[in-house]
């Protein structure tokens, strides 16, 4: 097949769904107008451990407009089949209203169904639950950790013992919540034993399988619709209990039920980035070459489920370290289960490694950029595999140049601007390139427009737009002639929109599908005696602006419309997909070099980021404007992680103290200075057919340590705890 010119891919398009969103016409989960729907509001537990001894629902039930109150006392038994498909971690997931046990603070204990949302809310506040509370353990330090994973190469202890320079540090990272703008919510509607769910999700197939498992019905009986998602950052990768509650309530009521979580409830049952305690020891020679790294990360999980995230990858592959040991522990607490949050595992680990690298650089008097370059590996030491592409060196070189790193005075506390101490810092970012099986369907209509679909989701990165771009070029159509649809289980299957795998996977599936469709049209033309293309080798035909033509003789050709009309066809269609190879002989990661400049008020301890630059090695950039949205969003998220975000638990009773957006601080516009993203011009075909390496997760990794290192450079104070607040710097 002749390669198609790339016109849409690589051009800075605005979101194709942007107008819908800014004019309020994009329907998010609970926005859908489902006739006859009633409203449900969840009642949460106000203890973290124990059991329910009584539930008085009489006040709620007698309130006008309240239709029903469902609790474990009147709820039907649910099947809860095992379900390995829906990102459920190992363990026993929470089963809604099946018993009187309380496992964590904010656990749903009842649901109130009413004619209006206001009535349901008031009804929920009238439900009087009594408990027998036991002392919960919610503090990471409160229980010993259970070993989850180990890794070792070489002899780390011996290498540490004989290292010329050694560092032994302990890091503490606060729990963070995803806090998407759109709260989680679901509408459930039954038709016999068939269930339709309008849900906020990054994985419609995950919700479909979980709902089927909970109710013990065939997977095909569940349809999940999720065309728009107002942000998620990972929180919608699982099917949380409220989805089952909505479906349960709808079944009990015999009519559709709408259920949205409140902002407060968003801190209880939809996951979070776990709190970490991380001991890191490293050894190096005097030239700064690492000889050993010993990692002992510990993070929190729930008592009922064992959460896993990618905490160990970076320590194994990021630098050229011959001796590595890792012991990952989890601490099981009386809390809800964590869930992957942007740059999961990598963001947390990178903070520890990259701050330690900065300390090493300082101790040895080596420039922090130079130190990283000295530790560049030539292959992935964890697998022995070569890198598909690894251009971290270029990231640092370009970044140093553009950021003006060369002008930096390495001495801490050497630069002042009025009351502010100014410092710069740098860190490496890295995230693995994942791919998964994905399918797509494309249909070319007689009018010369196309519809392409796949059951992907778009939680904000701009999947609608980027897939449209890939499809438009593959079909030789203008962007406005192609419509991409997603977010419905009736569409061909797609993986979750997480772990930055969607572009590579669904993008490759869309490419394959549209290539097939184009080829079908080309074959039809070259085999059609009435076509000007009759007899031409299919390989010599390209499609440009909806016109099939001989590559070297563009005058010879015809349009899709002419071709289909003459053949009396209403449309052509094709199915395609992408299956990653069972084994890839490469180590595949995206990389970045992150540079930050901060000001620290010398007396008041306030930290404000002054500018930031990241340079990415992320393969091909399909949609530069959307890539910038991702990059800036990632940097902003990183500023939050570094300086503000902190879910606080009161360990006396396991209560989350700051379960609202006034007390859980995220950056506001005034905190965001000049941010800049540069992408190395790349194309990694070893990673996947469209040459991308994933961006959405990578952009968060390395930001917090770059800021922390800049704070050290500004003040001479090394902080090993996130977030970095004024009290650490006074």
């Amino acid at each position, binding site marked *: 097949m002749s390669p198609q010119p790339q016109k849409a891919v690589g051009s800075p398009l605005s979101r194709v769904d942007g107008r819908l969103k800014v004019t309020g016409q994009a329907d998010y989960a609970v926005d859908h107008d489902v006739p006859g729907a009633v409203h449900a509001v969840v009642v949460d537990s*106000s203890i973290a451990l124990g059991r329910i001894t009584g539930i008085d629902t009489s006040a709620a039930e007698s309130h006008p407009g309240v239709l029903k109150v469902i609790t474990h006392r009147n709820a039907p038994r649910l099947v809860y089949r095992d379900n390995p498909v829906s990102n459920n971690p190992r363990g026993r997931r929470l089963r809604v209203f099946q018993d009187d046990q309380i496992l964590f603070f904010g656990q749903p204990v009842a649901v109130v169904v009413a004619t209006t949302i*206001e009535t349901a*809310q*008031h009804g929920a*506040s009238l439900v009087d639950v009594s408990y027998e509370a036991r002392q919960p353990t919610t503090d990471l330090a409160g229980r010993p950790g259970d070993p989850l994973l180990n890794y070792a190469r070489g002899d780390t202890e011996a290498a540490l013992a004989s290292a010329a320079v050694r560092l032994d540090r302990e890091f503490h990272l606060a729990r963070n919540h995803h806090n998407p703008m759109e709260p989680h919510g679901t509408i459930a509607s039954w038709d016999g034993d068939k269930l339709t769910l309008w849900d906020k999700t990054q994985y419609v197939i995950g919700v479909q399988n979980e709902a089927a498992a909970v109710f013990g019905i065939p997977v095909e009986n569940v349809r999940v619709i999720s065309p728009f998602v107002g942000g998620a950052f990972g929180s919608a990768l699982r099917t949380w209990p409220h989805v089952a509650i909505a479906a349960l309530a709808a079944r009990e009521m015999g009519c559709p039920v709408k259920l949205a979580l409140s902002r407060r409830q968003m801190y209880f049952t939809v996951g979070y980035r776990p709190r970490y305690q991380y001991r890191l020891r490293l050894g190096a020679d005097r030239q700064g070459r690492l000889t050993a790294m010993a990692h002992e990360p510990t993070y929190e999980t729930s008592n009922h489920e064992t959460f896993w995230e990618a905490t160990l990858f970076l320590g194994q592959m990021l630098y050229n370290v011959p001796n590595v040991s890792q012991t990952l522990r989890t601490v099981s607490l009386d809390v809800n289960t964590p869930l992957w949050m942007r740059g999961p595992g990598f963001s947390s680990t990178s903070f520890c490694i990259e701050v330690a690298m900065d300390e090493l650089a300082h101790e040895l008097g080596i420039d922090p950029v130079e130190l990283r370059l000295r530790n560049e590996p030539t292959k992935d030491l964890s697998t022995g595999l070569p890198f598909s592409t690894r251009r971290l060196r270029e990231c640092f070189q370009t970044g140093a140049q553009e950021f003006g790193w060369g002008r930096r005075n390495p001495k801490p506390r050497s630069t002042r601007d009025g*009351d502010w101490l100014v410092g710069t810092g740098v860190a490496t970012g890295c995230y693995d390139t994942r791919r998964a099986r994905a399918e797509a369907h494309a249909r070319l209509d007689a009018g010369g427009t196309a519809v392409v679909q796949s059951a992907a989701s778009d939680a904000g990165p701009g999947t609608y737009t980027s897939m449209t771009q890939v499809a438009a070029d593959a079909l030789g159509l203008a962007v406005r002639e192609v419509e991409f649809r997603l977010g419905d289980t009736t569409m061909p299957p797609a993986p979750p929109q997480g772990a930055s795998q969607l572009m590579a996977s669904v993008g490759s599936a869309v490419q394959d599908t549209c290539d097939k469709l184009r080829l079908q049209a080309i074959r039809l033309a070259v085999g059609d005696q009435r076509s000007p293309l009759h007899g031409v080798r299919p390989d010599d035909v390209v499609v440009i602006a909806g016109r099939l033509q001989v590559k070297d003789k563009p005058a010879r050709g015809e349009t899709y419309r002419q071709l289909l009309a003459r053949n009396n066809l209403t449309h052509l269609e094709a199915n395609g997909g992408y299956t990653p190879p069972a084994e890839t002989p490469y180590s595949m990661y995206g990389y970045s070099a992150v540079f930050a400049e901060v000001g620290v008020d010398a*007396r*008041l*301890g*306030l930290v*404000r980021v002054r500018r930031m630059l990241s340079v990415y090695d992320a393969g091909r950039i399909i949609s530069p404007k959307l890539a910038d949205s991702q990059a800036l969003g990632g940097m902003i998220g990183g500023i939050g992680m570094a*300086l*503000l975000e902190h879910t*606080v638990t*009161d360990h*006396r009773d396991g*209560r989350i*103290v*700051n*379960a*609202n957006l*006034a*007390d859980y*601080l995220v*950056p*506001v*516009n*005034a*905190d965001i200075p000049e941010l800049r993203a540069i992408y190395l011009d790349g194309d990694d075909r070893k990673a996947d057919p469209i040459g991308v390496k994933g961006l959405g997760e990578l952009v968060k990794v390395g930001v917090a340590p770059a800021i922390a290192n800049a704070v050290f450079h500004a003040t001479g104070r090394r902080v090993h705890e996130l977030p970095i*607040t*004024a*009290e650490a710097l*006074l």
Partner: protein
Amino acid sequence: MYPFSYTRASDLRTALRAGADGGRYVAGGTTLVDLMRETVERPGTLVDISGLPLREVTATKGGGLRIGALMRMAEIAAHPTVRALYPVISQALELSASAQLRNMATIGGNVMQRPRCTYFRDVTAACNRREPGTGCGAREGFNRTHAILGTSEQCVATHPSDVAVAFAALEATVHLLGPAGERTVAFADFLLRPGSTPQREQDLRPGELITAVEIPAQPRPLRSGYLKVRDRQSYEFALTSAAVALHVRAGVIRSAKVAAGGVGTVPWKLSAVEQRLIGARPSEALWAQAAEVAAEGAHPLAHNGFKVELLKRTVERQLRVVGGTR
């Protein structure tokens, strides 16, 4: 939210009557409605006073100001007379909340706002202010943002207002109108420390309405300003803050008005700091020496010990900003 009835008062008399009947005044609604949603507040009747004619800034004799209780925060901040005479007031307002809130919120409501303590606002937590006798969740809980001054066994919540700190510094008076007529209360006496009755937050009798806040005339020239220290650059309550107004004549400080926010259960007047300033000549050393006593009497809790030092530094900084360096 509990069901409630709603009436709009067309004039002061109907407002007072509805207030006397147990109605709860609502002005901008920016904080009362929030608290009703959280069921912290459960008024049976709301009396909307936003249409009452209490929306003027008037200059009083000698350079004082009278600010109508229903003036919006944004209106006051932008008011030319306020900006010219009392930058400390407009700055405190501009550093409060968000533009949207400032467009709705009134000065009466601002002074009356209730604590931001998360235990107070979480109806499942213990709180003596919300439910007397249930205990204080914050005292032994997470209290990073709580008060270090004016606390009691019963309560450690700060008064959250910024502009009230400026009012406290400038020794404002509160004009009240109630069933029994008009009265005025010194600002320092209007907002109450929690003591053993934390549920009593103001010296306000049933049915009484704030009609205005009055700033007494100050000796001129007067330089003033407000500094707010917080984790993020905007849209957050103060960790610490300082309102400072100085009158310097012939190189000597003749009048000093200083108060701090974010640290007290009420806006905290820093008389000891003022005493060290009056009669002295502005200098870096003086600012430091005066600020040294800013946290006198502080009782830090487990997580807010840093506020002691931060308060001193905040006051020192703002003295320098307003009083100038050397």
